[in-house]
């Protein structure tokens, strides 16, 4: 079975390094992580890997210092025309799914995982954090991530055994599905996408969450103060922010950035139920990035999708592999 890698060369570089205290995640570190992923995959028996080509050449650079015997025999790019935008991630993920990969390791932040999931809705993804606000991707040693992806790609651990199923949000404009979000959608009082990131809470009017917990970061941290929703729960939460509301919360909405928000109406979201966006015109931010324009007169809404996304749970996968005696036993 094949595995795949998407490494976003632009993740971890947006304006939140100026308006907040985000780290610069340089691409050389991503190169080193890919080396460890490949070595991990090979250790689990993977011999075929597809990857997303991009301007920096993260995967080709990773191959420079690796012994051919310690990595999969075939490591090839998908045949995609590069626009140097997030479209490359969407298109590459779609091609990987078409090629029948068993799992896609996605290196980036929430936005990169969202783009990959948009392109490949039916393939398990293993999201590794190299971005800014990371709720969806995990911070875990890349060697172990490669091993976990590898045991799944090799068929030793099935998606049913090693994945959790995450709720996702769907955004509709004039009743047409236009985008998805893995964690949050926010209505943002602006007409420009501009530098994309969301950091000015006074311009956020509504938040729709697929999950939240108190140890989260980003807009879901606001919901996380009110209640906890696990990714597996088939429900979400919608919050209307009201600057005049007496109920107030203070939450970390960015790296090193706290914001105070007045909490208006709070309601559960049930799968399939469309919750209308109250603001028009506005920009809809998905997973912390301003993305979609809603023009005056257009009607937008957000719902918890009935479809779910399979996400590799590294701990669960490795535990299952151990039980099946797939790991590290020397004979």
């Amino acid at each position, binding site marked *: 079975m094949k595995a795949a890698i998407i490494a976003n060369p632009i993740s971890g570089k947006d304006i939140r390094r100026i308006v907040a205290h985000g780290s610069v995640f340089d691409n050389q570190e991503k190169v080193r992580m890919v080396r460890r992923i490949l070595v991990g995959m090979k250790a689990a028996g993977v011999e075929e890997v597809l990857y997303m080509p991009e*301007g920096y050449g993260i995967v080709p650079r990773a191959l420079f210092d690796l012994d051919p015997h310690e990595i999969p025999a075939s490591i090839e790019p998908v045949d995609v025309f590069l626009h140097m935008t997030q479209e490359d991630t969407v298109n590459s993920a779609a091609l990987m799914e078409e090629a029948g990969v068993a799992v896609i390791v996605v290196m980036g932040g929430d936005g990169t995982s969202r783009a990959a999931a948009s392109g490949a809705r039916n393939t398990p993804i293993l999201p590794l954090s190299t971005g800014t606000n990371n709720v969806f991707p995990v911070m875990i040693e890349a060697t172990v991530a490669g091993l976990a992806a590898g045991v799944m790609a090799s068929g030793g651990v099935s998606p049913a055994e090693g994945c959790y199923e995450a709720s996702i949000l769907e955004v509709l404009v004039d009743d047409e599905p236009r985008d998805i979000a893995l964690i949050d959608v926010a209505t943002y009082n602006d*007409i420009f996408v501009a530098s994309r990131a969301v950091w000015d809470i006074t311009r956020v009017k509504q938040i729709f969450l697929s999950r939240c917990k108190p140890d989260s970061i980003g807009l879901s941290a606001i919901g996380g103060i009110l209640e906890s929703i696990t990714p597996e729960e088939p429900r979400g939460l919608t919050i209307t922010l009201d600057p005049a509301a007496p109920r107030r919360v203070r939450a970390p909405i960015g790296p090193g950035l706290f914001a105070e928000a007045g909490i208006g109406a709070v309601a559960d979201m049930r799968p399939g139920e469309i919750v209308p966006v109250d603001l028009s015109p506005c920009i809809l931010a998905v997973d912390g990035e301003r993305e979609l324009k809603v023009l005056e007169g257009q009607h937008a809404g957000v719902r918890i999708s009935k479809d779910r996304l399979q996400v590799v749970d590294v701990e669960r996968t490795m535990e299952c592999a151990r039980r099946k005696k797939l790991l590290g036993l020397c004979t």
Partner: protein
Amino acid sequence: MQQPDKKVLLDMYSTMTKIRLFETEVQKFFGEGLIPGFVHLALGEEASATGTCAALKPSDMITSTHRGHGHCIAKGGDPKLMMAEIFGKSTGYCKGKGGSMHIADFNLGILGANGIVGAGGPLAVGAAFSCQYKENGGVCACFFGDGASNQGTMQESLNFASAWKLPVIFVNENNGYGISCPTSKSMAITNISDRSAAYGIPGATVDGNDVMAVYEAVSEAAKHAREGKGPTLIECKTYRWRGHFEGDPCVYRDDKELKEWMAKEPIGRFKKTLLENKVATEAELEGLKKKAEEEIAAAVKFAKESPVPKVDALLEDVYA
């Protein structure tokens, strides 16, 4: 930050339009042999100049590059004096003796275009030091290209500015090529903003063809600088439609790449958003374009009708 009001938005549209028209005229007259020397056009790069200068105060300063016409127009430079200078006429900014790469207007905070790649960095650092020393709250935006980012002068400037927490906004216009050399062959990284980490300063990469993305980033960088927090490095990913210089056959890049970038051109994108959101009507924007056309036509007329410098003026303004 608050969304800028209508006047600011329409000014940005006008400025980008003016830069596009100005450069198109320079391209035409250079082709006709009416312009001496070299010209480096900023067609396609209108947003980075405009978004940056719109986020500054009139009293702030900029240092520019060899591709500096857009920067000067965006900071308020007079197209008549600019065009006359490019035509080599005595009415120009440098009395016709400097040409395209030496246009400056200290009264407007334009510390000069620069024929030396990477030479704007030290000037910006000096200007920013003057602001810090005088405690006047001023900042200096330093435009530089991807080629300049590899020059020692820029590394020294970034180091000095970060060590002294000087109010410099380093605005990198990464158009992918240093003359004919793609960045993939001249540096081991693709995002110049990564270098900010080496100097302990904030850095970010933005869509340099989105004027609002640039405006937002530079506004925040200016706020950061005015608060005494020091310099920032903002990388604007963009593309020049023309060659490095007029006459460059551009054999080092293909048409597909050019078309891809032309599809992301900044003025049409901005106009679409303004119209979609009823910030302005088609008639209003057409009126602004017409006004810009008249201004540039007047600049061309002024330049053409102005006299060339007299021979006996050759040694005037020579200091060394």
